[in-house]
């Protein structure tokens, strides 16, 4: 058997091991909840404040679960007297966002409807918190 063929076969063997381990690795990443990077920051995962007294034009991407609210403990501060301290939570899901109200006093509205359970958001939806309105970009 020529040495060159043996060398080629050696690389094929190692490549096969890598292929198998890569296949499991992607499945494990899903199992532990790591999101594929391409999903993050894609369309439908960013928000922009479109109506507010002080925060018009504020934009942010949701790359991990974040909490909106008036408190300094919130991940994104909503400067609105009608917003609760920890008002609502946004979570990135498969290629979209979900929104949950955190028991706020004045409620959270998506496209004018009050949020009672976890809702999935799509591009163009408007979220109202107090008097502040955000839009999914």
């Amino acid at each position: 058997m020529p040495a060159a063929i043996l060398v080629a076969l050696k690389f094929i063997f190692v490549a096969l091991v890598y292929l198998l381990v890569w296949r499991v690795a992607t499945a494990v990443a899903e199992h532990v909840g790591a999101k594929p990077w391409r999903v993050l920051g894609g369309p439908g995962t960013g928000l922009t404040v479109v109506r507010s007294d002080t925060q018009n034009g504020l934009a942010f991407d949701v790359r991990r679960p974040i909490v909106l609210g008036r408190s300094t403990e919130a991940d994104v501060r909503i400067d609105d007297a009608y917003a609760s301290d920890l008002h609502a939570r946004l979570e990135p899901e498969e290629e979209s966002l979900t929104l949950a109200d955190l028991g706020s006093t004045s409620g959270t509205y998506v496209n004018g409807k009050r949020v009672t359970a976890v809702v999935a958001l799509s591009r163009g939806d408007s979220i109202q918190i107090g008097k502040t309105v955000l839009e999914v970009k």
Partner: protein
Amino acid sequence: MMRASGPARAMSRPAELVFVCGSGGLAAFGVLLVNLAREQVRATPALAAFLVLAVAFGLLLVALRAWAPDATPLLIPIASILAAVGFVTIYRLDEDLASLHGWWLLLSAAMAAFWLYAVSEKGLGHRGGRWWLLLALAAGLVVIPSSGSDSSTIWLAWNSGRAVVLNPGEIVKLVTVALFATLLSERQAFFSAGGRYTAPLGPARATKVWPSLLLLGFVLVGVAIRDSGTFMIVVGMFCVMAYMATNRTAYLVGGLGAGVLWLVAGPWLSAGLENRITVWTDPWTHPEGPGSRLAEGLFGLAAGSLSGTGLGLGDPDLIPESTTSLAFAAVGEELGLAGTVVVLAAYALIVVTGFGIALRAREVFHKLLASGLSLLLGGQAAVSVAGVVGLLPGTAMPIPFLSYGLSLTMAGFLMLAVLARVSHEERV
């Protein structure tokens, strides 16, 4: 509204089966390559390798399907890759040993399948704790009188040949992790209170704990007498699991302290240990004698370089114990850095999967069992590899799924079965 039916399966059952057959194919390809390097074209060994891997892991898949259908589908594929690489390495070094190893793989898979059947009725209940205790005690009793005082390998041989040997240390490790999980989850309050609140809690509570601790100490001492590697692992497991259960850093500090004490005081206690530490600090002084394990292993890794010499083309037979504790060096010689990195990645994936199960589990016992077993598997692989590359004194510890050995293979398969069972019961 989402996740109503649980998380989506990361890998479907048919995909799993295809994957396991792929691992069998990998083993067959490797065996074929070894024979090609010897200028031979033999189909029978390659076919046998495929059948052994596919049947052993296929059996485990069937057992999971029958008795733990909600188990995570990730563990078996990773283990099957490692077992395939291990089988090829053993075949390359010793064909007879490989055919024995094939039987051990099949036997271990059957054992794990039987275990899955046995627990399928009542589940992994807390009440099983007493049985873990008795098993650990029995295994500890077996370890103490077994001969072989000159080295750290504890082999119970049934006949003079190398054929049928049993290393109770492997089972001791597995059972003690289960025992720790039981103890820590049942008596969490006691362990988190530590010494401070024993009196207010009342002597009644304390007396319930102390007998278990005494037995535990007995097992530990039994292991310590001959098998310092197992001892290190067991003590380390206790400290880390107690820390996970109670969030008290004292356990971690204590464990590290014990490790340092072992390194400092060990040489006075045992001549064998002193020898190994001397060899560890300077393997080149006597590369032919006591230092040969570490030195030859390092030579093997160096010869392998980036992509290895190629299967069947290196000289891993020069490495002592290359089918057991130095299997990693044998892989490194013929598959190179490329091969060793992917092997390490596979171990990391097992640990990550195991911790994924533990993190999502709701019951404390399940959490501790899953995280403890994944740590045990990863820890043993880490200690073995560290011994090969000279990061730690050589503990003659075989590496799970890669090395030859009945007890090791059996313990590995049982670990997979227990992890799968936990993930089934927690539906994660």
